[in-house]
């Protein structure tokens, strides 16, 4: 049974088991390896993608769940909020090992797209599901605020 996907604006077909985790399809079948596997149980956030503008832990969703919906991976981020986040991440040297950062950026971008001027509490609540073993949390927070300031002009 074929599942039709819209990944980063491109239509793709997946002919495997519709219950396959979306993460595997993204990485193994579509070759988009920017989205990471960290835990497989929706506890770390490294697998975060956007579906119709909302965050989704792709390790915890069957590929069938996103049939016909707009899926955006880290490779496909292009919104003003995404560009501001990427710029802030570079300016503040947020990244250490980098493994969690695709997920961090996806969650941060989703937050700013819905709430361009988030409070620290908003940041806490939006980012709580993204774990960083290098503990770059303070820089992530600062970068979200910096991106917000840039969006405000």
């Amino acid at each position, binding site marked *: 049974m074929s599942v039709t996907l819209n990944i980063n604006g491109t239509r793709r077909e997946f002919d495997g088991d519709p219950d396959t985790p979306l993460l595997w399809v993204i990485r193994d079948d579509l070759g988009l390896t920017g989205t990471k596997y960290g835990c497989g149980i929706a506890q770390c956030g490294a697998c975060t993608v956007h579906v119709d503008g909302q965050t989704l832990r792709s390790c915890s969703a069957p590929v069938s769940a996103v049939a016909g919906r707009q899926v955006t991976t880290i490779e496909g981020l292009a919104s003003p909020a995404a560009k501001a986040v990427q710029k802030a991440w570079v300016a503040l040297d947020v990244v250490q090992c980098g493994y969690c950062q695709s997920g961090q950026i996806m969650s941060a971008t989703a937050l700013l797209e819905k709430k361009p001027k988030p409070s620290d509490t*908003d940041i806490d609540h939006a980012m709580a599901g993204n774990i960083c073993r290098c503990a770059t949390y303070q820089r992530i927070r600062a970068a979200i605020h910096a991106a917000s300031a840039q969006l405000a002009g």
Partner: protein
Amino acid sequence: MSSLVKATLIMIVLAGTAGSLAGAEDLRGPETFASITNQSERSRALFVEAGRVLQHPRCLNCHPVGERPTQGNDGHPHSPLVVRGADDKGAIGLRCTTCHQNANYEPSGVPGHPLWHVAPKSMAWQTKSLRQICEQIKDPRRNGGKTPAAIHEHMAHDSLVGWGWMPGANREPAPGTQAQLGALIAAWIESGAACPAS
């Protein structure tokens, strides 16, 4: 395969099955309480039995008093940190649907339902006595405007309520079945919907 090996394998399978059913406790039906001749007493007893479902972790975890749902049979704070948000469906950027999909998902063990969300604060049950929960359920100002018939319909047929008996993974289901809960609630309503003393 030798008969000893076969017997051993059968015992292992049966033990595993028994283990998974061990958490599925029975719920007593309304007929069990028919011998209580005092109507109010019988009504209260019926609700106490229904309370074994209402106060089970599968139900209580999503009826928090504060901002955060809980998890597990010990009611520890939901991990990761999530809050009810403005609409009881999560915060901006971390919605319930970020992780919870339309059905339980075995590869990740994450439970799911199309309408996954936290019960509104007016329907908070954690830290409440069974009497307080009973009074809340009966109060149209706090139960979403439900009539007694609607209360029964919700308990007996709502599919998110029904998830409590099909939680997936290694989660212990609520006692009995949703049909049994429905029968208890129907009998409770018919007997005057009396609330327990405590």
